[in-house]
């Protein structure tokens, strides 16, 4: 018999921020209370097994209207990989122009998701 335990956390799926209480067995959610939508179920399952977050940061741009361009992970990636990801993203330097949605790094740190540009950025001058 494995032991069950309860875990409390705030759902970050939307601004409501439901206070979830999950009864868990290892990395499996047996029961969930406090969620008010199905996104909470998915969030709790991930949060117990492997917390996932959308990653956002910036990359350096040469000759652009701004010296940096905002980027994000196309889909959420494991929270535990966030610092590995941020180190990889920090190494990038691209020439302008940048187009929104452009892939900056494919399959970042083997997470299966890409880092993409969040805006278009033309060349200098502004």
């Amino acid at each position, binding site marked *: 018999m494995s032991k069950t335990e309860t875990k409390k*956390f*705030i*759902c*970050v*799926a*939307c*601004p*409501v*921020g439901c*206070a979830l209480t999950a009864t868990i067995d290892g990395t499996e959610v047996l029961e969930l209370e406090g969620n*008010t939508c199905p996104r909470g179920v998915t969030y709790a399952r991930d949060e117990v097994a492997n*917390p996932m*977050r*959308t990653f*956002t*940061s*910036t990359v*350096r741009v040469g000759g652009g*209207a*701004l*010296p*940096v361009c*905002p980027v*994000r992970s196309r889909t959420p990636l494991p*929270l535990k990989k*966030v610092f590995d990801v*941020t180190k990889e993203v920090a190494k990038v330097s691209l020439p302008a122009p940048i187009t*929104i949605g452009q892939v900056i790094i494919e399959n970042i740190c083997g997470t299966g998701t890409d880092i993409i540009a*969040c*805006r*278009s950025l033309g060349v200098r001058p*502004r």
Partner: protein
Amino acid sequence: MNANTVKNVDVAVIGGGPAGIAAAIAARKEGAERVVVFERDWEAGGILQQCIHPGFGLHMFKEELTGPEYVDRYLRLAEEAGVEFSLNTMVFSMDKPQSFDGRKSASFWVMSPKRGVENIKAKSVVLAMGCRERPAGAHAIAGTRPAGVYTAGTAQRFVNMEGFLPGKKVVIRGTGDIGLIMARRMVLEGAEVVGAFGAMPWPAGLRRNVAQCLDDFGIPCYLGYNVCELHGSKRLEGVSVVQVDRNRRSIEGTMRFVECDTLLLAVGLIPENELTRMAGIKIDSYTGGPVVNEFMQTSEECFFAAGNVVVVYDVVDFVSQEGERAGKAAALYAAGKLEKGPRYFSVEAGPNVKGISPCELTGGQDATLFLRVLEPVEQSCRLYAEPGIFSQKLRYARPSEMNEVRVSAEKLNALPPDVKAIKIGLEIL
């Protein structure tokens, strides 16, 4: 004043942030011929361009976007709708509205490097200047005045748009959303964040931001604390923090020194209404924004307002929706077709409610009112509008999140003629 040119427009929108862009699109869709957005920055988008975190667009686009992506979507819609943008253009002076043929119209003055000074005449105006952070000078912190003290939004611009990090060891004063989001951002950029210190017993920002910005990175959140003194001669070397009671009075014997080289201030946003005042428009003393009715129309009938210039919002999607309402009404006014309702009601704050907007209703169309609660209620409660025109059960109510009250014109107009005030309140069930 002499201007190089006088330009006539139908609907002028002042400010190219989310409220202004949405207003301009709605004005075009309502049939206004010439709709121009005046934006002082080199590009439209406003503060969203520096909000590179996700969480925008859940209502409008049913997906989670970053700030710049949300702007990109709206700029495409604006282009399709035929909205004109006048960028790098500062609106620096506003004349009092003029009456002509029984209708009022606006006149204001802009400056830009390309065209110099111009006088703009508009049949109607949407004020969408947004808000400004409470500046360092308004914080009443004792001690020295070293470098390293920034508002959270300034730091956000430095990091996310200008590409440099304002410090290495950071204390955050306040627990507003921008402060929480900057805590995570600074950590990801290699800085150490010592903690966020908020005076109230609850965080000012959303719970999800406490979870994903502080908890995820092991950053402590100190509630019931004030940052009361700065130390350091040239560069900040540390701050004194002290525990405070519910009335924000320092508790003796609790002061301690916290080492840091950077202090970010995340305490409050103030609607930016210098131009509104110049036009002689009535300001609500509580929200700091113009008094508006359900059409987002101000006390000067050719002026409309939307977004954070009216009241500070929590979610940008609501700002866009409000922009649409203002833009549509402004276009109708410009065409001489805006019909107010037959009544006049003032909206008053009852128990545990503050900063309601709109705060006047005419019964001309269904109204969406936004408000915040004064203190958090973490149990079943009821939000109501008396006399008997709205009632909604809520599972909770928190100051960090706005609440909506929807009032139908039909119900308002059915009220007895002696009813001149609507009272909104929250009661615990």
